[in-house]
């Protein structure tokens, strides 16, 4: 039996990788993938705890998260395509119309 802490550690590592990728990467698609990575890291800890405490709620939450992530992927990719069409670039640093 693999101890609980290993799963949690893996989840934390994956989450931190996601955060780091989100902050560091310049390509919009990579940033987007980092977000997915963070979501799945959280999913992993949900499943871990659900298994540990024999509570089904955690697993249900995972389905919700996956569903939201799927929807987000659909919308997000559409936005990315639209942005690319207009700006002809996916570099996050160049997409900065929001500043004053």
């Amino acid at each position, binding site marked *: 039996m693999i101890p609980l802490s290993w799963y949690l550690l893996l989840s934390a590592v994956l989450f931190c990788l996601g*955060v780091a990728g*989100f*902050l*560091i990467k310049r390509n919009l698609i990579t*940033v987007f993938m980092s977000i997915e990575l963070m979501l799945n890291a959280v999913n992993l800890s949900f499943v871990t705890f659900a298994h540990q405490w024999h509570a089904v709620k955690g697993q249900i939450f995972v389905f919700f998260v996956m569903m939201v992530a799927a929807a987000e992927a659909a919308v997000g990719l559409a936005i990315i395509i639209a942005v690319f069409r207009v700006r002809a670039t996916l570099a996050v640093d160049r*997409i*900065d119309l*929001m*500043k*004053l």
Partner: protein
Amino acid sequence: MNGSLDLLLIPVLPFAGFLLNGLLGRGLPKWLVSTIALLAPLGSFSVVLRAALAIWGVGSTPLALPYTETCPLPWIDTGTLHIDFSFALDQLALVMLLVVTGVGFLIHIYSVGYMGHEEGYWRYFSYLNLFLFFMTVLVLAGNALLMFVGWEGVGLASYLLIGFWYKKNSAATAGYKAFIVNRIGDFGFLIGLFLLLANFSTLTFSEIAEKLAATPAWQGGVLTAIALCLLVGATGKSAQLPLYVWLPDAMEGPTPVSALIHAATMVTAGVYMIARTHFLFDRSPFALDTVAVVGAATAFFAATIGLVQTDIKRVLAYSTVSQLGYMFLGCGVAAYSAAIFHLVTHAFFKALLFLAAGSVIHALGGEQDMRKMGGLRKRLPVTFWCMTAAVLAIGGFFPFAGFFSKDAILYAAFLHGTGGQVLWFVGLVTALLTSFYMFRLWYLTFLGEPRSEAAHHHATPASMLSVCVILALLSIFGGWIGFGEGLGRLGAFLAPVIGVRSAETNAGKLELYLSIAAVAVAALGWFIADRLYRQRPQRPAELAASLAGPYSLLANKYYVDEIYRAVFVKPLQGISMYLLDWIVDKALLSGGAWILAGVMKFFGAILQRWQSGNLRSYAGWLAAGAAAVLLFILLPWPALLASWFGIHVSWGGN
């Protein structure tokens, strides 16, 4: 007589005319504008006539006076203070209304001819109707506050009409001057209202009179203060010393306006107001004496200036100031009905003088300088005869209107003790001056040889001439309403409102002597004018040259405008510019605002850098924020604080 007199209609009709012409007049044809503008005062006049018939009981029992109509909606209703839109009709108001709407209507007719070529025809008539609205409100007002509304309103209408030719700089300035000088007087009136409110806790004239009647011992003191404040208001509106300066300048307005507003009606509002609040003045001998002295001084002072003016309208303006001084003199010796009588006759002959002068000016294509007139008798025969009647009336010749009313005032002044005889003497000298400068005007304008050939002359329309003729008849016969004992029918009619002084009732030989003296003095004035301006036309110039000092003093109107400019206007301008504008406004207020704005801008510029638009920097701040929250929740703060700083805090409940 039962039923309503529809007093409300009297002011509302001109107001409707004002709205119609003022809002739509630009697009309406001239005949329609004239029709609207003439129907409004005609309607008011007929309502007034109906009221007069009801009061004199034609066809039924006479109406009991005072008759009050109150608007069912309250105006001001706060705790102890309750003020309504109430219109009160009594004998005094009726006389005044007849003059205002009657003469007002005539001058409306005259204006149709006089202003026919003007561009702002509709504007002119809407202002004229507006004036009539406010004037009737002023006269009908049952309480002092409503009177004040009318009072301010006529000032506004006067300002608008003086500045009617607003493209002319002098006209616009004269409008300001009239408005500002009037504001000074209005301020006094307003203080008087506050004092009335504080001491009587009502502004309704009848209630104030009742309260005063209940306390017969109450004399002087605060009543003097109230009366003097009201007097300040009256001097502003009625162009008395020291606030008369606006009236001569008001002649920049169209001549019919000068006739209606600045001679016949509005400027008499001060006299009317004093007569309306006479119960206050009666309780304060000091205030009454002040009124009398102000009146006599103004009468004399303005008459001397009138001697040397060369602008025909300015002569008439100073004579108006002078005649208003007579009315104040009458009020000041408590001969209110004599003052009102003079107000009525003055309205007739002064309106006529102005309208006749207007017809002269009209015929000469805008020329107002009497030195360039002369010999107009043949060209303007009707105007000449009308003017003659008016000159005889204002000069005080028997049996013209001015004789009776001026005589009544002088007689009342003479009976007013020792000081009264001084006042009488001043009035008599003024009568001499009046007669002189009016005949001077008459000779210069109508007699002798034409001194310049006017480039073009219009024919005077029949509408203008017929108005002049009506007013001439009134100037000749109008005085007879006050003929006889105690001002005759007029005195008896006004008696219930403003009382009869014993002095006015026992006319005897003395009055006859005084009348003869007055007429003799007037004839002397005529004689001098005749010598100077008919027989030896070069003599006035020689006289002016030999008396250069006094002449230039008079010609420059005693330098009063210059003195006011140096004493009041310049210092005020200095304070406004240097203290208020530069120091207070620009340095303190504006500077403070700029400093605050600068500080905000400075911090804003720093914080602005946060808003980079860079997605990853936002994400970084998000992550840092999340880390900070986690740190805050997870770290054992109470223990840390205790160990670092020795501070002990309890957290929540544990």
